[in-house]
């Protein structure tokens, strides 16, 4: 880039990951057509994602503060999603969140019980 960056690299989403997400979606939409992304457009995708994070976080933060809390929780973010009119995201997000929590619960249970499982298997 010929211009100096105002925002340091550390506070941007990695281009490789943004490219992967975009290409994956394009491949799902049109498996027969190979759609590519111009490099300027890729940078714009990165920037758009960053702006979206700010926009969503700020909205969630306002919702959190209205409830007189200091820590933004998942419900604040989900309400913020509706607030910014991306309602179609809510259901997939809830599904992902439920799956995430179940996975973490499982890991927790596994770690707590691992010694027991280990010894049971040895003695079986």
């Amino acid at each position: 880039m010929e211009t100096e960056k105002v925002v340091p690299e550390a506070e941007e989403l990695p281009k490789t990951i943004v490219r992967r997400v975009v290409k994956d979606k394009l491949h799902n939409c049109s498996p027969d057509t190979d759609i590519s992304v111009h490099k300027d457009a890729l940078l714009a995708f990165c920037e758009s994602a960053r702006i979206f994070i700010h926009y969503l976080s700020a909205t969630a933060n306002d919702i959190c503060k209205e409830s007189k809390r200091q820590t933004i929780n998942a419900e604040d973010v989900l309400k913020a999603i509706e607030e910014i009119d991306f309602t179609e995201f809510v259901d997939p997000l809830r599904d992902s969140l439920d799956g995430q929590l179940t996975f973490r619960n499982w890991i927790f249970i596994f770690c707590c019980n691992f010694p027991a499982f280990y010894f049971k298997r040895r003695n079986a």
Partner: protein
Amino acid sequence: MAEEAEEQNTETTRPEFPVGRVKKIMKLDEDINKVTSEALFVVSRSTELFLRFLAEKSAEAAIEKKRKTIKLGDMRVAVKMHRPTSDFLLDSLPLPIQSLDRPATGKARSRPAVEKPLPVGTRRIDRFFHKPENEVPVEIEDD
């Protein structure tokens, strides 16, 4: 049991977004104090969904023009057509005819004339693009 965990692992912890990076970006807003890990996950996943949505709409715009490469102009079309997205993003997208400028530096000259009334609980996105006082001035090379 181990197989189930393996399945859930690939389904729920897809290595899409670096959560640490998302958190750093969020923390740039001084007003934001603490965030639960679930909230951080939802923000990351939302951003991924948003990117996928934007990609799809931009691709449609490109295909409409019989092209197979998404360009900036296609993204502008996609953003303009979706009101929730254009509310916060249209001003920040660079115009296709100029070289890609950082939206933070471009913000000062492309302010909309009419201020739209804000929905409850939101604030303008351009609050984030005020340069901090201790920042080194940006040097722009002339070609």
